[in-house]
């Protein structure tokens, strides 16, 4: 059988067998829950058998509206797995699913109390009493806000596609600045902002994406490895959580509309948030084809911090693909791991 004919056979076999395809295994790297509070929990990945290679633990903070397992997608395609294999003591926040009562959860609770507690728990396992803090997307914004006000336990800060400036002309920023959009009315009526509303806003960024994905799947249906990764990512992409109402109101009004981080009008637990207060080593990763967090929204962090040791990685790729792809696992994450390793002691 020729290679082309074999490819066709596999394509049809996979397309016809798609409804019966087993659900992808996600978030499978062994981890223990070391702290639980309200809906969020702190997970600690089990160390590799030969033990830890680095003294400073790592705390991963994912976006508030996505499941944490994007950073632990599938065995063999997991960021957590890569970091554990390189000898890091890895903690991750699982934000959980907010209940109706969490409509009152505000930015102070999330960015100060929760991240603060997670840092303190993780720091108990650090001889330095400090932790490498990494935030992805909105999780990055949360870590910036936290590190600017409570720098004590932050050994270094790594942001991945984290928005800090909100005056870009992206569709999301344009939509949230719309005077006809009353964020207070939305939160008062719905409490937590349903993930369906958030997801439809993201779909507006590329309305043809579902069709494009379908064509791409048919095109690559012969490739089992591609299909496994695709369905794992789709599982994650469709497993979103609602945004706690009060935190959403502050996010839109205080950060998006007022551009509160750049203009220094935003406050955390009564303390002004000034990015200039961040003096720890900083690694900011931005992506060239990121339509959710454009470069213009993520890059200003580097100009604002007072860190002497700061570095920027600007990479090709989009908001999710560039973080979880096989290429990212082979290049980006080893780079981040080496950057942490070089800053393992004060």
């Amino acid at each position: 059988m020729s290679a082309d004919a074999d490819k066709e056979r596999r394509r049809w076999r996979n397309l016809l067998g798609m409804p019966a395809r087993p659900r992808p295994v996600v978030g499978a790297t062994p981890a223990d829950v070391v702290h639980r509070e309200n809906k969020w929990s702190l997970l600690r990945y089990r160390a590799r058998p030969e033990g830890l290679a680095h003294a400073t633990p790592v705390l991963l903070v994912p976006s508030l509206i996505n499941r944490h397992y994007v950073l632990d997608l599938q065995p063999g395609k997991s960021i957590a797995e890569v970091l554990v294999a390189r000898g890091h003591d890895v903690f991750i926040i699982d934000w959980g699913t907010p209940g109706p009562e969490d409509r009152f959860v505000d930015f102070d609770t999330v960015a100060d109390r929760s991240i603060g507690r997670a840092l303190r728990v993780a720091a108990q396992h650090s001889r330095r009493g400090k932790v490498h803090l990494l935030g992805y997307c909105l999780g990055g914004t949360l870590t910036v806000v936290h590190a600017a006000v409570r720098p004590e336990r932050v050994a270094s800060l790594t942001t991945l596609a984290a928005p800090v400036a909100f005056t870009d002309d992206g569709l999301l920023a344009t939509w949230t600045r719309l005077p006809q959009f009353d964020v207070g009315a939305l939160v008062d009526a719905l409490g937590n902002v349903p993930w369906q509303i958030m997801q439809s806003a993201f779909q507006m960024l590329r309305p043809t994406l579902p069709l494009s994905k379908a064509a791409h799947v048919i095109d690559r249906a012969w490739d089992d490895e591609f299909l496994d990764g695709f369905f794992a990512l789709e599982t994650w992409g469709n497993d979103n959580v609602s945004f706690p109402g009060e935190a959403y109101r502050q996010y839109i009004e205080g950060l998006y509309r007022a551009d509160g981080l750049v203009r220094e009008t935003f406050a955390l637990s009564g303390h002004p948030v000034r990015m200039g207060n961040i003096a720890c080593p900083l690694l900011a990763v931005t992506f060239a084809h990121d339509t959710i967090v454009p470069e213009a929204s993520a890059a200003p962090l580097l100009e604002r911090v007072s860190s002497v040791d700061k570095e920027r990685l600007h990479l090709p790729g989009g908001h999710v693909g560039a973080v979880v792809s096989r290429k990212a696992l082979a290049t980006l994450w080893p780079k981040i791991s080496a950057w942490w390793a070089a800053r393992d002691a004060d």
Partner: protein
Amino acid sequence: MMMGWDAFKKSFDVWEDATAKYLESWLRSPLVLGPGGAMLTAAMRTKSAVDGAVDTWWSTVGLPTRRDQERSLHALNQLQSRLMDLEETLADLRAQLPPQA
């Protein structure tokens, strides 16, 4: 078969790219965004008004409203967090004490 699919995929990609760009410019238009935002806000205000009326009726018969229950649960969650704060403070203080003979 394969060649037919490849040709279709190429033209699909061109169409998809052009359509996405057109839709993006259309969605950015104030003519679409303005009425969209206004409709969403109106719908939310209507929902709040209806919920408010139901809550008022519920309160008149002496029963807690949905919002009352949410507030109580939130207060319990806050209490739990504050207890954890106190436990942390106590543990820190204990760690500073000299070891007992």
